């Protein structure tokens, strides 16, 4: 390591440079598009509240693009503390921007390891998330993925780097993904705890109450039943009590109860419901879901084991060589070509245009809410959704044009030998059709489709043109 840790940082308007690394300084309430961050080596988030920091860190870490979710993130701390699970999503804190030299070694190490990993190109959301988790763990030299109790988690436990990809309501799917990862042999589980989830919405924020078996009300009172041996009288303890002293007197024979087991005993307990008047011995324990308000019978609840995970050797290899799922991958979708093929064909097209001055276009369709969407539907439905989309695109373009998946939420296609204007019309129509189709086929699923089309410029490389056409799809953080 030849880096000089004592060298002075160089300050720019919204960045600081130290030892060849450029840190983007994300100011309070200052929105920035993720794509602009691609030029930086690390991010320093300056924030006045833990909540804002949490939001920004989450936005960075839940992005599916490796260029963003692996980027080192530091927090410039004010006088507030961050929740532990947020601490796990960042790479460190500094207390003044001058301290940036303290974190440079960390950035250096992360970048070295980031260069080793291969992100998987699988389309399946599960496979993508497993790959994400493994590469992040490798990048940060983390061997453990541990469950943490977390009040805002949908299931009560969070595995920060994995759970960050989900809305609280969908967090139960984290457990499914971990199960797949374990089956694939990349993670090894060890029992940690057990939890119960709502049968309707699969969240774990439940209010347990002892309820009347008849009407379900929790408004009840319990009393011991006393049996007076000598006269056979049996009744709730209140029958035996008086207002003057603590003595118990039998209402039937007026004798004083002296010794339990000798002259009386308590054979049972009885509860009385104040709502419906029902008297009963066994409460019906119910669990009301705080999230969806459904009142579960405890037998209905979904019991899940919560484990801690260790990355296996195979997991480490998967981080380095790319994770390929054997069970959950979505195979090639008919009508598409591989991304590499697309790249090559694009190169030829650029060459052709240079020579013939033709008018061809490169075009991208992107599902803006894919993370949220896929986290909800699972890989089987995701696959048929992508299939439907491709089929529709295929029907509306010429057979000589090519379709490929850039990633699981972005389709690239070529529209050769037509003017940009015409291409624009076609693509906008296709997108409208896609939204409509998915809405009818997938039960009112809200799908947010964006598109972009650009004329091929023979002066630029194929890779750069691809980046340009998808650039606008990145969200603000």
């Amino acid at each position, binding site marked *: 390591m030849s880096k000089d840790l004592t060298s002075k940082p160089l300050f720019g308007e919204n960045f600081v440079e130290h030892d060849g690394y450029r840190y983007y300084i994300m100011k309070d309430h200052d929105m920035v598009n993720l794509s602009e961050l691609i030029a930086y080596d690390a991010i320093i988030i300056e924030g006045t509240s833990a909540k804002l920091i949490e939001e920004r860190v989450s936005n960075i870490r839940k992005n599916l693009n490796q260029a963003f979710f692996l980027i080192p993130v530091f927090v410039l701390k004010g006088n507030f503390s961050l929740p532990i699970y947020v601490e796990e999503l960042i790479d460190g804190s500094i207390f003044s921007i001058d301290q940036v030299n303290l974190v440079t070694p960390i950035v250096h190490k992360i970048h070295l390891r980031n260069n080793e990993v291969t992100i998987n190109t699988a389309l399946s959301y599960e496979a993508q998330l497993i790959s994400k988790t493994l590469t992040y763990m490798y990048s940060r030299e983390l061997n453990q993925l541990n469950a943490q109790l977390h009040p805002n988690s949908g299931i009560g436990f969070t595995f920060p780097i994995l759970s960050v990809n989900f809305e609280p309501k969908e967090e139960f799917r984290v457990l499914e993904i971990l199960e797949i990862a374990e089956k694939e042999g990349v993670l090894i589980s060890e029992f940690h705890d057990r939890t119960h989830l709502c049968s309707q919405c699969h969240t774990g924020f439940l209010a347990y109450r002892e309820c009347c078996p008849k009407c379900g009300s929790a408004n009840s009172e319990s009393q011991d039943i006393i049996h007076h041996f*000598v006269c056979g*009288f049996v009744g709730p303890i209140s029958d035996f009590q008086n207002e003057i002293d603590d003595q118990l007197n039998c209402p039937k024979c007026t004798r004083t109860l002296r010794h339990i087991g000798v002259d009386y005993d308590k054979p049972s307990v009885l509860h009385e419901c104040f709502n419906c008047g029902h*008297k009963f011995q066994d409460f019906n324990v119910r669990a009301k879901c705080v999230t969806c308000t459904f009142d579960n019978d405890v037998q209905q609840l979904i019991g899940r084991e919560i484990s801690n995970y260790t990355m296996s050797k195979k997991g480490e290899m998967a981080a380095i060589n790319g994770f390929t799922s054997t069970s959950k991958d979505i195979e090639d979708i008919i009508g598409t070509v591989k991304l590499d093929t697309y790249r090559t064909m694009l190169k030829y097209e650029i060459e052709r245009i240079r020579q013939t001055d033709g008018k061809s276009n490169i075009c991208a369709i992107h599902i803006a809410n894919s993370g949220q969407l896929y986290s909800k539907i699972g890989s089987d439905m995701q696959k048929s959704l992508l299939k439907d989309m491709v089929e529709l695109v295929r029907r509306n373009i010429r057979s000589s044009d090519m379709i490929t998946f850039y990633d699981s939420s972005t389709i690239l296609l070529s529209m050769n030998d037509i003017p940009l204007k015409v291409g624009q019309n076609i693509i906008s129509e296709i997108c409208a059709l896609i939204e409509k189709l998915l809405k009818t086929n997938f039960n009112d699923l809200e799908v947010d489709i964006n598109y972009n089309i650009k004329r091929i410029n023979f002066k630029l490389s194929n890779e750069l043109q691809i980046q340009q056409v998808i650039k606008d799809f990145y969200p603000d953080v």
Partner: protein
Amino acid sequence: MFDLDEFIAYIQAVGAAKLFRIFWFFVVFEFFRYVFIDFVVLISWRVKQYYDKDKLNDARAQMEFENPLVSIIVPGKNEGKHLFKLVKSLREQTYQNFELIVVDDGSDDDTPTIGKTLEKNGFIDLFIRNSVRGGKASAANLALRFTKGKFVVHLDADCSYDRDAIEKIILPFYMDEKVGAVGGNVMVRNYRESLVTTLQAIEYYDTISIGRIVSSHLGIYRIISGAFGAFRKDVMDKIEGWDIGPGLDGDITVKVRKIGYDIKFAPDSVCLTSVPNTFKKLSRQRLRWDKSIIRFRVRKHSDVFKPTQNFSLLNFFSFLENITYNIILNIKWYVYVIDMLFNFVSQIKFIFVANIFLYTASNYLKYIFFYPFRPRQNAPFAYFLPYLPLMVFYFGYYLRIVRTIAYIKEYFFKASYKDPWNPIKTSNKAKEIGI
């Protein structure tokens, strides 16, 4: 050995006075009391029934109008296996405004599970589980504590009930407001099972059922069978439920009587029960019943004979009749046997046969003449005919011996306190204070 001609000659030879001298026991106790008096009373009962026709219709209309809530209570131990059949048969009842309360008195089988399931599914309104057994009285009292009805009907889980049984057992309350409790008519379901059950069926049919019609009509009816009885809730509250048993069926009626209420028998409110199927089991059951006569009539409620302020002539007679029938008669029989052995020892063979003959004849007489007074048959008329001669031995010897043993055991040794029918903890306490 025994010569019929000789026997007939002997009968012809002795005069009427001598015959009475020799068969006094039969003439006085059996024929006069249990054939002649019963027959006269039965006729008078029928006549009264005829004149009460309008009253009955009024009562029925009143009951239909009021539609009172009836609380059916079923206390018991290890009765789970019978519960589903019971609730199903109750759903068939003509009278439907009832609540069903089941108390599980410390069962050690799967009764709690069965009861809770039935409660959950709405077949039982309230199922209460006592994890420790407290005895039948406490279980019934616990159920009673949670009844909401105007009337309380006490059932046994292993009995079954005629479709109109509940309706018919409540009706007498509307005939006369002095009625505090009503007993149902228990018949034997398993009368074909063995000789013992057949003989018991005849006993229930002839002696118990008819006997109760008679005593109810005379106003001295005294035992409401535990298998089927109805009580006014306010009366039960006054007497504060059941006291500890055994024999609480008889005890509760005495308590009801003592506070001035009448007890009626409802012959047309029929319940079928399974009786013990071996002599051994039957003996055990009867020993318990007979011991309780001493314990409750002679010991606990002896004040009925004393002219205190609560003295009631009917109660006095009811008790007297009860004690006469059960205890005095038993002693008298031994007196008779001794009388015969001492004074007529040479003719004992004839006397023995003649007695059997007389009793058998009277049994047939009763069986046939009482026939029109029975509300309902549980077996074809002819079924019991061949068994009637055996009743002489069943009644005259078997039951009498069991009874004697019970009386001696209880009177001299207070054996009922050791009966496992009650938990030891309650029996000890009862003995301590002498009830």
